[in-house]
C-alpha cells in the first residue's frame, strides 16, 4: 500500500518546516519534499520606509544571525549613499568586520554544539527526549559550558560593535555609529579566563578535534550520508581567500571547474535567477548560464571551503589544508562534512577577531562618509549559513521602492531537498516500518545546512517539523509531529 510520511515540525533548525515523503505500493520512495510553510513579506512592507531604516528593520527577519542582514542591508545602502565597497573609513569597515566575525563565532558555535552535536555525541537513534542540548549537558558538562561561553563571547563582540546582542544599530549607511573603546578591546583581549580571545581560539581548535574524532570512528556515515555532487557558490576575496564580509562572487562545479569567477555582485541579477515552485514559500535560486535544472548550487561552510583558495589565518589555514587533502583538493560534496567546514570557519573567525582587536584602527573616530547618491544598491555578505543577497532601490525622497532578498537558506533550498531525497531513498525506501531514528536522519540531513527557515521565507512562527507518510491515494498512513 502506498504511503506518505510527513515530518512536521523539523526540529533543531531555525524556523518552521516540514517534510513529506510519498511511497508507492511497494514502499518505494516516489517523491520527497522539504516544504517551508511560513510567509512574512519583508520585501513588500519595507517599501516606503526611509532607506536608513533598512539595516535595522530587515535584520528583524532573524534572531540568530541578524548581524548578517544588518550588514548586507548596510552594504547595499553604502552604495546608495555613494560609499560603496572599499570606500568606508578603515575604522568603519573593521568595526563591521569585527561585528560580523563575532556573529560567525556565536552562530557556528550555536549550530554545532546546541543543534547538531546531539546527533553525533548521543547518536542519531538516541531517545529524542535526551537527543538535545540538555542531553549534551548531562553527557559532558565541560563541553556544554564551552559551547555556551563560545557563543557568549561572540554575542559580547556583537554588543560592543552593534550596541545590542540581538538587533543592534551599529552599521549605518556609509559607516558605523561607534568605534571600539580601549576598555572594550582589553576586555576581549585580556579578559579573565575563560572569556578572552585566546581561550576562544583554543576551544575552536578543540571543537575541530572533537569532530575529527567522530569522523575517524564513523567514516562511512560521515562521508556517505547525503553526499551528492553539486555546484558551490560564495563570495571570495579578490585574491581567492576566504572572506565573510566582502568579496567577489565565485561558483565552482562538483569537480572544481569555475562557473563564475571575479563577478561583481552589483551585477548579480545577470548571473542568478530565482524559480518559484507552487508547493513552497521558498524560492529556488539558480545560476542563469546553467539553467533552472542544472544551475542549483550549495552555499555555506561547505561551499565556501570549496570556492576559496586559502584561509587568511594561520591555524585555520592549517586545518583547511588537512580538510582539502581529504578530497585531494577537489570540491567536497559530502553533506556532513559541512560540520567540519563550519568548525574550521569557527576557528578562522576567532583568529580574525584577535587580529582585528589588535588593530588600532578600531579606536579611530572617522566613522561615516557620504558620496554621490545612487538610485539602487546591492549588498552581499557571507552569512553563517551562506551567501546573503540584499538589493534595494531608493527614490529621490529617500524612500525604498524595491527590495529583493535572497537569503542563505533559500540558496540551499534545492540542496536540502536533494539531501532529504537521499535519506528517503537510502533509509526509508521499502522498509516495513518507519522508526523515529529513520525520521531523525531526514532532519540530520537538513540540519547539516543549518537552515534558517524564518529568514528564508522572511517568515515568523514556531520551530516545528512534521513528517507524514502518505499512500498513493493521498491517505496519511503515519505521521510524526514534534
Amino acid at each position, binding site marked *: 500500500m502506498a504511503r506518505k510520511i510527513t515530518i512536521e515540525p523539523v526540529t533543531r533548525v531555525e524556523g518552521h518546516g516540514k517534510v513529506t515523503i510519498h511511497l508507492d505500493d511497494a514502499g518505494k520512495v516516489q517523491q520527497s519534499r522539504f516544504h517551508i510553510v511560513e510567509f512574512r513579506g519583508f520585501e513588500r512592507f519595507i517599501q*516606503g*520606509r*526611509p532607506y*536608513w*531604516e533598512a*539595516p*535595522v*528593520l530587515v535584520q*528583524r527577519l532573524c534572531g540568530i544571525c541578524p548581524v548578517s542582514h544588518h550588514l548586507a542591508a548596510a552594504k547595499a545602502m553604502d552604495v546608495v*549613499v555613494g560609499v560603496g565597497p572599499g570606500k568606508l573609513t578603515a575604522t568603519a569597515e573593521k568595526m563591521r568586520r569585527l561585528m560580523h566575525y563575532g556573529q560567525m563565532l556565536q552562530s557556528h558555535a550555536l549550530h554545532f554544539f546546541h543543534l547538531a552535536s546531539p546527533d553525533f555525541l548521543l547518536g542519531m537513534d538516541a531517545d529524542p527526549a535526551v537527543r538535545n542540548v540538555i542531553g549534551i549537558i548531562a553527557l559532558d558538562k565541560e563541553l556544554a559550558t564551552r559551547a555556551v561561553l563560545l557563543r557568549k563571547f561572540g554575542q559580547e563582540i556583537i554588543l560592543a560593535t*552593534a*550596541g*545590542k546582542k540581538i*538587533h*543592534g*544599530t*551599529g552599521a*549605518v*549607511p556609509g559607516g558605523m*555609529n*561607534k568605534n571600539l573603546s580601549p576598555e572594550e578591546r582589553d576586555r576581549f583581549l585580556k579578559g579573565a579566563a575563560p572569556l578572552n580571545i585566546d581561550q576562544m581560539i583554543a576551544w575552536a581548535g578543540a571543537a575541530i578535534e572533537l569532530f575529527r574524532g567522530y569522523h575517524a570512528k564513523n567514516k562511512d556515515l560521515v562521508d556517505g550520508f547525503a553526499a551528492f555532487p553539486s555546484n558551490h557558490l560564495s563570495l571570495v576575496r579578490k585574491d581567492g581567500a576566504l572572506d565573510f564580509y566582502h568579496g567577489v562572487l565565485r561558483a565552482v562545479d562538483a569537480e572544481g571547474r569555475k562557473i563564475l569567477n571575479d563577478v561583481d555582485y552589483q551585477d548579480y541579477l545577470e548571473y542568478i535567477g530565482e524559480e518559484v515552485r507552487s508547493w513552497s514559500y521558498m524560492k529556488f535560486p539558480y545560476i542563469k548560464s546553467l539553467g533552472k535544472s542544472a544551475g542549483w548550487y550549495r552555499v555555506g561552510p561547505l561551499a565556501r571551503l570549496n570556492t576559496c583558495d586559502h584561509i587568511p589565518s594561520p591555524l585555520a589555514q592549517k586545518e583547511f589544508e588537512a580538510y582539502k587533502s581529504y578530497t585531494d583538493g577537489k570540491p567536497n560534496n559530502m553533506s556532513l562534512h559541512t560540520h567540519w567546514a563550519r568548525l574550521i570557519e569557527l576557528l578562522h573567525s576567532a583568529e580574525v577577531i584577535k587580529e582585528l582587536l589588535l588593530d588600532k584602527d578600531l579606536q579611530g573616530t572617522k566613522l*561615516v562618509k*557620504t558620496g554621490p547618491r545612487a538610485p539602487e544598491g546591492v549588498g552581499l555578505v557571507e552569512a553563517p549559513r551562506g551567501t546573503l543577497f540584499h538589493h534595494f532601490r531608493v527614490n529621490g*525622497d*529617500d*524612500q525604498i521602492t524595491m527590495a529583493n532578498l535572497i537569503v542563505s537558506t533559500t540558496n540551499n533550498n534545492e540542496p536540502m531537498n536533494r539531501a532529504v531525497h537521499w535519506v528517503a531513498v537510502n533509509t526509508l525506501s521499502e522498509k516495513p516500518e518507519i522508526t523515529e531514528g529513520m525520521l531523525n536522519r531526514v532532519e540530520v540531513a537538513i540540519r547539516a545546512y543549518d537552515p534558517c527557515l524564518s529568514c528564508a521565507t522572511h517568515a515568523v512562527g514556531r520551530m516545528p517539523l512534521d513528517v507524514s507518510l502518505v499512500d498513493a491515494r493521498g491517505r496519511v498512513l503515519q505521521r510524526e509531529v514534534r
Partner: protein
Amino acid sequence: MSEITITIDGRACKSPAGRTIFEVARTNGVYIPTLCNYKDLRPVGSCRVCTVRVAGRYMAACTQVAIDGMAVENTAPDLEDMRRSILEMLFVEGNHLCPSCEKSGNCELQALAYRYQIMVPRFPFQFPVRRVEAVAPKLLLEHNRCIQCLRCVRSIQTEDGRRIFVPQNRSRWRKIGVDPRLAAELTDEMALKAMEVCPVGSILRKGVGFAVPIGRRKFDKTPIGTDVAEGLPR
C-alpha cells in the same frame, strides 16, 4: 512678586505666583509627566498626560496656574492608571513599532511607556493605514507615529513668524501637514530642530538615521523624569 505655597502629594512647594502647577512642580524637583508640553512653548494641554487632581477635580498641570494653598494630587494610584491609559491609547491609535524606529531610546512616548511599565495596552490596536510622506527636501513625516502634540506646529516658524507645520482635517482624520513653500526653504538647523522637538519619531531628517549608538541615547541610562527628580535643568 508674591510667593505662593502649594502641596503636591503633601509636600510643600514654594514658587513665585503666576506659574503653572507643572512649573511649580519642576522647580521643586517633583516630576509630572508631559508629552505636549515643551520648554518655552505656550502650553496647550492637549495630551492630558500631566493630569493631576485638585479638590477632586482633574486638570492639566501644564495649563492650570497654581494658586496659593492648592493641595495637588500627583501620584495617586488611580491618577497614575489614568495616565497609563492615555499612553496606551496613544500607542493603539498609531503604529508605534519601536524596533525599527530611529527615535527609539530618545522617544518620550517610549520612555513614558517604560516608566509606566506598559507591557500590553488594554485597548485594541487600531492599525490605521498611514504612509510616510516626503514633505520637504530635508524632511519626512512618519504619520504612523504622530501623537498630535502640536509641538512642531507651535515651535517651528520662519523668521517672520509663519508656521511651517499645520494641523489638517479634524477628529480622527487629523494629521500634521506642512506649508510646502515654507518647508522647501527649511534650513538644516531648522530641520534638526523639528526632529528634536518631536517627542516621537514622526519628523525625520532626511539622510541621517541611527547616528547615536545604543547606550548613549537620551533614555538609555536613566528613565524619563530623572532629571527633574535630581533637580537638574531640563
